[in-house]
Every structure is written in structure tokens, then in C-alpha cells.
């Protein structure tokens, strides 16, 4: 079986994941898209592991670790999303813009000596 097939599936899944993360408004959908990306990575790992006949089975063991960490991560991500939902009653990423730059402060305070020079 040509190695390219799993790699292509992995690449496409990854691209879909990227699109999902960037285009989706709902935080949980973004988390799902992240899952997609992680799966793409796993597929890649396993494909290369089998292709290279790795003695240490590094690819597969890493896939296990990635799955574990992804599970932990998605758990925490959702906990945060739920917390946000409780505070803001919405999980729309567009709404969460509290950290944006407020409009610029009024013009810089003209220092004393600038005034002196100006007169």
C-alpha cells in the first residue's frame, strides 16, 4: 500500500482541522477541529512507524501518548468553555473580545519642556 495514502489523508484532515479552528464561531466546534488536527498527527505517526518498521514502535507509542494528552487537554478545554458559558452565557468566540485594545489613549500629554519650546 503506497505510503502516500495515509499521509494524504493526514494532510487533508489537518487542513480541515485548521479551517475548523479558524472559521468556527462556537468554542466547542473549535475544540473538535483541534481533535481533528491531533488525529491527523496520529495517523501520520502510525503511518511512518509502520513504514519505517521501527523497533521501538516509537510512532505507535507516541500516538498513545498523544491520545492521552489530547484527552486531558480536551477535558480542560471544555471545563474552561463551560466556565465561560456560565459567566458570559455564550460560547461564541466572537463575543469574547475583552482583551482587545481599547481605543488609543488621548493624545500624548505634552511634556513641560515641549510647551516651553513651542512658545
Amino acid at each position, binding site marked *: 500500500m503506497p505510503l502516500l495514502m495515509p499521509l494524504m489523508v493526514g494532510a487533508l484532515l489537518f487542513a480541515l482541522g485548521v479551517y475548523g479552528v479558524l472559521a468556527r464561531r462556537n468554542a466547542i466546534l473549535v475544540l473538535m477541529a483541534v481533535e481533528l488536527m491531533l488525529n491527523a498527527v496520529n495517523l501520520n505517526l502510525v503511518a511512518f512507524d509502520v513504514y519505517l518498521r521501527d523497533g521501538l514502535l516509537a510512532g505507535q507509542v507516541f500516538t498513545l501518548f498523544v491520545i492521552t494528552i489530547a*484527552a*486531558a487537554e480536551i*477535558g480542560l478545554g*471544555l*471545563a474552561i468553555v*463551560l466556565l465561560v458559558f456560565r459567566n458570559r452565557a455564550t460560547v461564541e468566540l466572537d463575543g469574547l473580545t475583552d482583551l482587545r485594545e481599547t481605543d488609543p489613549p488621548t493624545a500624548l500629554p505634552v511634556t513641560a519642556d515641549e510647551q516651553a519650546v513651542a512658545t
Partner: protein
Amino acid sequence: MHDFYGDYALVGVVLLVGVSFVTAALTANRLLRPSAPAPGKRTTYECGVDPVGEGWAQSHIRYYVFAYLYVIFAVDAIYLFPWATVFAAPGYGATTLAEMFVFLGFIAVGLLYAWRKGVLTWT
């Protein structure tokens, strides 16, 4: 065919058979069953009274914690299986056992934390 695939070929076939069986049953049912749509029938069932509000009910956050507890422990448990097959083999004796106990020990601490925090009980 390579016997490795053979094993799962059968599983695949069984899966297909199961799916086809269910679809067959449902299509047969579609043929046999009467269909007398009436508005009353299709309203959401709420002990006979008219349904109030939308189909969503506020549910407590603790369900999420249980689900998450399961996720964490499931992720531990899957390491048990390869360990189970390997730990008794020569060359992996007590040290592997100790490793797994350390592994499970940490997770048990997590469980203890949940327990002491009273996450598992509610009034």
C-alpha cells in the same frame, strides 16, 4: 488473505451483517406499520400535559466532572492492558510492577482528591 486481516475481516462482516439486519428490520417495519400522523401524537411527551418551554433542561455541572473523571481513568486503564500482557514475561518482573503501581498511585491521588473534595457526593 493475510490472517491478520482475516481476523478483522470477520468482524467487519459481522458489523455489516448487523447494520444490514437493523436496516432490514426498520424497512420491514416501515412497510408494516400504519401511519396515521396526528399533531397530538408528535408533541413531546410530558406525562400527557402540554410540553412547557423548549426541549432543553439545565443539568448540573457535576455530570461533566464524572465524565472527565472517566476520561482520565480510561486513559490510565488502556496502559494496563499492554502492561498486563507484558509484566509477567521474563525480564519485566517486579520493576514493571512498581512502575505501574507508581502510575496508578498518582491517579489514585487524583481520585482521593476528588473524593475528599466531595465532588462525588451532592446534597
